[in-house]
């Protein structure tokens, strides 16, 4: 028997989808009656593969879990290993890590900005913002050798020291990016039509946010001030001065504004880091990777990524290889159960925008 509602396949081959996933929509008119998230198109079995690889070999793997923003993954694994081992990290390495994390957050926000306005139909912003993001990628390239995947942060510190004159380049790039932000404001955030499209759509209220385990900018967009960097300061975030912006409303607009304000905070954090960065070693010696036994133990570590709290649960059984590395990205909740819930009653026009504003990133759902 034919169903009454029309089935619309939103993805995997769809210009509006973020990444490779599928939302099966049942629509009546252009209103969504039921949404079903289908993931697994990107499943590479990272967690299985890590059981077969040494601790050091796992670092290139974890960074591929989240493509737009790989550094929180490396940071998480590094800190988990350090916590289990009780390994100390030099102060300089901590500062460098914070700088890399904030740079990657900025890069991710630029990409998000492109996606958010691209799905709204404003195609000039993606062109600008992805272009501007490349300046940050250039910094990464100089620092780590890779544009996208850095494999830079590892247990015991970072892979290499800052190149000569790098700090100046970072500052210059920050100046440039800061000078660009007002233009984005004019084009996107102050744009009347964008506001019309974004306000009152995809609303998550406070209770719902807590009930469904929302994290990151969507949580702060409901007015709940929660940020891992403040709650449980890792690295040197407790020594830095920044605020956690929150907005009321819980709609796409609030989430967009939270991100927009966080971009300013990130720039300021990066400046502070460069200013305060001490000298000294950039890493503590670790054993030969091929002979690196991590004592038995477990650790749950979390990092604030651009999309929210990124948690790793790492178990070691004392052998060469991890017993279990379980990754919980923010999209794990946002992309499956929450998305299915808030899409009901939404308009077809807004599906892509809602997905984008929640920061749904399929590779971290299925890994």
């Amino acid at each position: 028997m034919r169903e009454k509602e029309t089935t619309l396949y939103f993805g995997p081959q769809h210009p509006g989808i973020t990444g490779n996933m599928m939302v099966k929509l049942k629509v009546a008119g252009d209103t969504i009656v039921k949404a079903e998230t289908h993931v697994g198109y990107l499943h590479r079995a990272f967690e299985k593969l890590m059981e077969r690889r040494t601790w050091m070999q796992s670092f290139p793997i974890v960074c591929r879990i989240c493509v737009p923003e790989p550094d929180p993954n490396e940071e998480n694994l590094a800190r988990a290993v350090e916590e289990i081992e009780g390994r100390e990290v030099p102060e300089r390495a901590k500062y460098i890590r914070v700088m890399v994390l904030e740079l990657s957050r900025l890069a991710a926000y630029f990409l998000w900005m492109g996606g958010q306005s691209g799905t709204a139909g404003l195609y000039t912003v993606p062109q600008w913002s992805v272009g501007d993001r490349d300046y940050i990628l250039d910094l990464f390239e100089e620092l780590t050798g890779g544009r996208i995947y850095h494999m830079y942060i590892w247990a015991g510190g970072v892979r290499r020291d800052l190149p000569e004159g790098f700090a100046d380049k970072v500052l210059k790039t920050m100046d440039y990016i800061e000078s660009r932000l007002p233009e984005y404001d004019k084009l996107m955030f102050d744009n009347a039509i964008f506001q019309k499209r974004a306000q009152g759509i995809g609303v998550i209220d406070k209770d719902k946010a807590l009930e469904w385990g929302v994290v990151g900018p969507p949580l702060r967009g409901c007015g709940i001030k929660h940020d891992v960097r403040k709650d449980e300061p890792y690295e040197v975030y407790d020594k830095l001065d920044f605020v956690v912006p929150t907005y009321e409303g819980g709609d796409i607009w609030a989430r967009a504004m939270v991100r927009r304000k966080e971009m300013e905070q990130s720039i300021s954090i990066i400046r502070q880091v460069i200013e305060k960065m001490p000298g000294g070693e950039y890493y503590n010696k670790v054993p030969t990777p091929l002979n690196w036994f991590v004592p038995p133990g477990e650790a749950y570590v979390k990092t604030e990524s651009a999309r929210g709290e990124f948690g790793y649960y790492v178990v070691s059984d004392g052998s060469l290889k991890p017993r279990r590395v379980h990754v919980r990205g923010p999209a794990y909740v946002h992309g499956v159960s929450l998305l299915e819930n808030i899409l009901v009653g939404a308009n077809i026009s807004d599906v892509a925008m809602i997905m984008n504003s929640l920061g749904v990133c399929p590779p971290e759902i299925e890994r």
Partner: protein
Amino acid sequence: MYNDKEASKIVDIIKNFARKHSLWIVAYGTGCGAIELPPTMTSRYDAERFGIRGSATPRQADVLLITGYLSVKTLKRVIRTYEQMQEPKYVIGFGSCTINGGMYWDSYNTIKALDRYLPVDVYINGCMPRPEAVISGFIKLQELIAQGKADGAKRYQENLEWYRENQRKVIKNWRMPEYNW
């Protein structure tokens, strides 16, 4: 009177010139390599200079870009997408994982060699390839088109049996609509 053969040659030259300079990529980010497509398409590298642009559905597209590893689940959709495209159509394998599995060589869910399942015209290696590499891959494809060597679709048609056999071996539950030529 002009020679018919000559005329068809001129038509071929025009056709190939147009095909070469107008490559529409179907919007399908199959793997993590899709993250380098926005920089390629946007202001820094601006692939539109070469007539490369995205298209929403496979019916309108010329190029299927396999951006990285293919899980079995995706492979099924990719085959479907590829078969819905109109000839002439080209496949570009993007990243090491399409060539030999890359770092997922021992994963139970990803295929290791794309050209067993789809006719690949150009491979771009790297993990992941930089935008420059992507563009150079496209230029290579353009050269092949100009020479008339980008005949992936034809190979697929001729060796359909072989491709099907490989595809069926991987995709356990083959519930695909049959491809009528």
